[in-house]
């Protein structure tokens, strides 16, 4: 629209393709290629193998996949409950206090993850809550970091909700609890599912807080990938990264298209 001539367009488009290719496509492609490479010393790898995936399917790497999935599930579920609760409670509470509290729930996303981990380490290495060295402290760290995103997503969903259905329900005599369970929550279900997917995806890639607090028996995928590449085993690291990427994309795109329809988008 801005560039009218054909030659101008072709020039602009090849420029865009070059940037997109070098910056966004090449990194993903190269990790995919590395995860199935036997050896890679020159321009292209020599020989292909599924050995790295076989390595990643057993032993410590399999434990890492399990740890990441469990951590992501538990932390996302907690974030979903408190995020939805806070968003619903603040919706009824407009005005300056409501806004200030809303900002407060966003702050965990602004604090560096390493500092969140350090804070948890300091706070829960002493009584009354001794969590250091347990799996629970990893759940808590992930929960804190993703809670802001869950809250933000659900708040955004609520703000787009047309009030008609809820008002009709109230006029017909539905009590607040009934209205919440049968009208409001079903209406925002797509946002709840999408928020769960995003939380899960973010938790899967979390590194900064996890390296601060994880106990030896609960190594998540990013920590395991760092361990592998740090030891020089970059091919198994690439395979585990591919598993992480594919899981993340399935969670994101799958849950975004979940067969739940919003009844009343405004």
């Amino acid at each position, binding site marked *: 629209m801005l560039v009218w001539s054909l030659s101008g367009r072709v020039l602009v488009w090849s420029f865009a393709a070059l940037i997109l290719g070098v910056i966004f496509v090449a990194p993903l492609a190269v990790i995919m*290629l590395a995860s199935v490479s036997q050896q890679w010393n020159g321009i292209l790898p020599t020989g292909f193998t599924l050995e790295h995936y076989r390595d990643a399917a057993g032993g410590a790497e399999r434990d890492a996949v399990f740890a990441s999935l469990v951590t992501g599930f538990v932390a996302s579920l907690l974030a979903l409950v408190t995020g939805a609760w806070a968003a619903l409670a603040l919706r009824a509470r407009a005005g300056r206090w409501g806004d200030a509290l809303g900002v*407060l729930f966003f702050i965990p996303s602004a604090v560096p993850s390493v500092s969140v981990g350090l804070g948890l380490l300091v706070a829960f290495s002493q009584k009354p809550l001794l969590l250091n060295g347990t799996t629970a402290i990893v759940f808590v760290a992930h929960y804190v970091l993703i809670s802001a995103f869950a809250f933000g997503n659900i708040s955004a969903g609520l703000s787009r909700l047309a009030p008609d259905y809820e008002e009709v329900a109230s006029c017909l005599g539905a009590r607040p609890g009934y209205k919440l369970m049968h009208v409001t929550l079903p209406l925002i279900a797509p946002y709840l599912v999408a928020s769960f997917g995003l939380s899960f995806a973010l938790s899967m890639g979390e590194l900064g807080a996890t390296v601060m607090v994880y106990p030896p028996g609960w190594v998540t995928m990013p920590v395991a990938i760092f361990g592998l590449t740090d030891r020089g085993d970059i091919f198994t690291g690439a395979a585990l990264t591919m598993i992480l990427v594919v899981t993340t994309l399935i969670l994101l795109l799958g849950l975004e298209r979940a067969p739940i329809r919003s009844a009343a988008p405004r």
Partner: protein
Amino acid sequence: MSDAVALAPRAAKVDLAGWWIAPPLIVLALLFLYPLTLIARAALIDDSGGLNLAAAFEVLDSRAFLDALLNTAEIAVASTAGCVVLGLTLGLILAFAPFPGAGLVARIVDTFIALPTFLVTLAFTFLYGSAGILNGALTSGLGLDHPPVDFLYSAWGVVLAEVTVYTPFVLRPLLAAFSLVDRSQIEVASLLGARPLRIVRQVILPAALPAIVAGGSLCLLLTVNEFGIVLFIGAKGVITLPLLIYDKAIQESDYQAACAIAMVNVALSLGLFGLYRFAARRLGG
């Protein structure tokens, strides 16, 4: 506020309803705010329970801390500038000179937001590392003895990785802003003989300024906090604040120093978060 007056008879009920925020607030306080205050406590109060600023000052006056602070600022500013330039370039092309499949490309770039940041660093090892594709091609192609491309294990490697990872955070608000620009304005301008660059400068950029500021300040916040990329590159000379905190706490078990540095890092991040909120709100983003 007129609503509140109209609803006056229900005031007692509304007041009660206000307490529904308490449970998630208590969770937030216990798991997030309480640990943050303990960081400050560990940094400023010594074992005997008295206020001891000297130890914290000693940490904050050290070479290691000042270097890390400078590195963090330089990397964050350079990365943010890179993200804004790249995001603007791509955004203009995707929105105003769209090619077939531009929508799909925008969506793919969007998914980068949810992918772990260290992925890019790992990929860069294969692409630009000393035994990577680029160096392999150059050494065999030009018959060189040693790999000519050597920027990966420096601040530039970190900057390039961060530009890749954080450009989508600028691109997303920019595309939203561009979609609101009145197309007929652009057509009129070009019918009147304005060249594309002039249209960009005088019509499109003013309309997209709020999105640039909001996306840029978000980038600044995220690049100051970035940890995975710096850890994975693992270059000796490239230590940022989050990495220094990790080193002090986990490698050296010096929690007092780690907490003192964390206090500065958190304060810096909260300041940038305030700037982002202010920019996003003030400019109607």
